[in-house]
């Protein structure tokens, strides 16, 4: 366990000494600002269903930021070590593969959580400025961050796997971006063609449509199905990552 903490500390440090963490943080802050502004303008223009929270997480800006975060946070995890050759130094030290995989993954999860702090502060700031004039349902707020956390777990695990597959960070980023986007598009696709296919099919697809999950949770409803879905896929992808890292130890 001790080794795991040493590795985790090192990974977190690596994020903050490279410009990456700051660039991503700045990017997300800007896009979150746009999200909030977009939500406000929706509410300003006409009376509408849903709160400021709902509209913020349905803004186009939100999805834009959403897909860029994961490749940026995960692409270097394994790919850089492979490229630099430190992969060899790392795995000839007495470490278990699971310690390395979890340390790298949890470091990216930690940074991901930090990324959402400014967005939460935006809401608090808005509440303070408007002296509570804007309705800010706390259940919806908590629900939103809960689902964001679980969606993050899932997408970061994809990124982790992508990074373990290659020694090229760009390729890792492209794989993770494409995989996250495809997963999202399945849900989007069904909301477009929903009327032309059978009800059951739409229902099934909606189980893993991120758009649908966001809709539920930003309304303040906590549905355990997506949480279980994301958690189990996360574990699956991390197990795959473990296997990929261990691959060189396989006997032909």
């Amino acid at each position: 366990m001790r080794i795991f903490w040493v590795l985790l500390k090192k990974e977190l440090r690596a994020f903050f000494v490279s410009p990456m963490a700051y660039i991503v943080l700045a990017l997300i802050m800007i896009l979150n600002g746009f999200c909030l502004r977009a939500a406000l303008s929706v509410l300003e223009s006409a009376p509408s269903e849903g709160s400021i929270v709902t509209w913020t997480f349905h803004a186009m800006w939100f999805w834009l930021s959403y897909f860029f975060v994961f490749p940026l946070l995960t692409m270097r995890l394994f790919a850089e070590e492979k490229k630099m050759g430190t992969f060899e130094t790392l795995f000839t030290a007495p470490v278990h593969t699971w310690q390395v995989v979890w340390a790298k993954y949890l470091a990216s999860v930690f940074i991901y959580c930090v990324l959402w702090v400014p967005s939460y502060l935006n809401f608090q700031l808005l509440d303070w400025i408007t002296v509570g004039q804007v309705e800010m349902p706390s259940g919806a707020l908590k629900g939103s961050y809960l689902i964001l956390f679980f969606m993050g777990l899932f997408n970061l695990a994809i990124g982790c796997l992508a990074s373990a597959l290659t020694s090229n960070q760009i390729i890792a980023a492209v794989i993770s971006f494409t995989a996250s986007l495809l997963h999202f598009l399945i849900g989007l696709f069904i909301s477009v063609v929903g009327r032309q296919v059978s009800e059951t099919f739409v229902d099934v697809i909606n189980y893993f449509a991120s758009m649908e999950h966001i809709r539920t949770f930003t309304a303040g409803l906590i549905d355990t199905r997506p949480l279980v879905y994301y958690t189990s896929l996360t574990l699956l992808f991390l197990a795959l990552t473990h296997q990929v890292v261990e691959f060189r130890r396989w006997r032909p």
Partner: protein
Amino acid sequence: MIAVQDLTKQYAGRMAVNHISFHVEPGEIVGFLGPNGAGKSTTMRMLSGYMPPSSGYAAVNGHDVFRESLKVRQSVGYMPEMAPLYLEMRVKEYLKFRAELKGLRSRDMRRRVGEVMEQCSVTDVRRRLIGNLSKGYRQRVALADALLNQPPLLILDEPTNGLDPVQIRQVRELLRGLRPAHTILLSTHILQEVEQTCDRVIMIHRGRILANDTPVNLTRKLRALTQVFVEISGKGDVAAQLETLLGVRKVNEELREGDWVRYALRVEPGNDVREEIMKLADSQTWKVRELHRQLPSLEDVFVELAASEP
């Protein structure tokens, strides 16, 4: 310390290491010698537990490198080729991280980090970013890392690669000083290094072991190439007279400086003609200002062995 039996590694059908067997006793310094791509690094990677053999058996300190990989890694200080390091870290910070990874704790860790930095003379750059260091310093930081937990076995892949002559000498001294507490297996393609540092040489070529012996024995076996150099100033046909000596096969005139002529004599194995040359010079009243014998270098041995390989 190391036991290797029929070790084989295949990469996509190519035999990188082909059924090699050897032993290394505790306290030995063994040099792994071979041209690039001979299978040195592959063997070392297998011994350090980084990747498993395709077939065969290798044990380090009594532990199987595949089944007890973790125990093997605890007892091996491995320094990969090219000394890969985290470039965004500072030297001391990196060594601390590695020490913690190898299980050293608080006071022990600080003491050892200080010691290895001193041993590898990187103390003066301890606060510098590794990315800004020269190749020589990086190489020594990697070596310091390998020494951290005082492993009984050190596996060093080209430890002096990229160092300048002064640094090479320092590293050589350092390695000699580590004996007998540490057993060392080092690879190189520089032959003098093996001659000067190692107790034993394992020559490897195309994944096979060509020779496994002490440097002295290896060169003794191939005395055919012994050369004697002599610089003489004298009257008459000196070269022809030298050729009459027992065991001299060929005399070449190398250099002419006024009256002085430098001759290179090829001598058959098992003969030392230096004494005879002096006697001859005495009787002919030649003046001699140089006389020395050059034993074949490991390089000659290696070239000969590699050439005789089918």
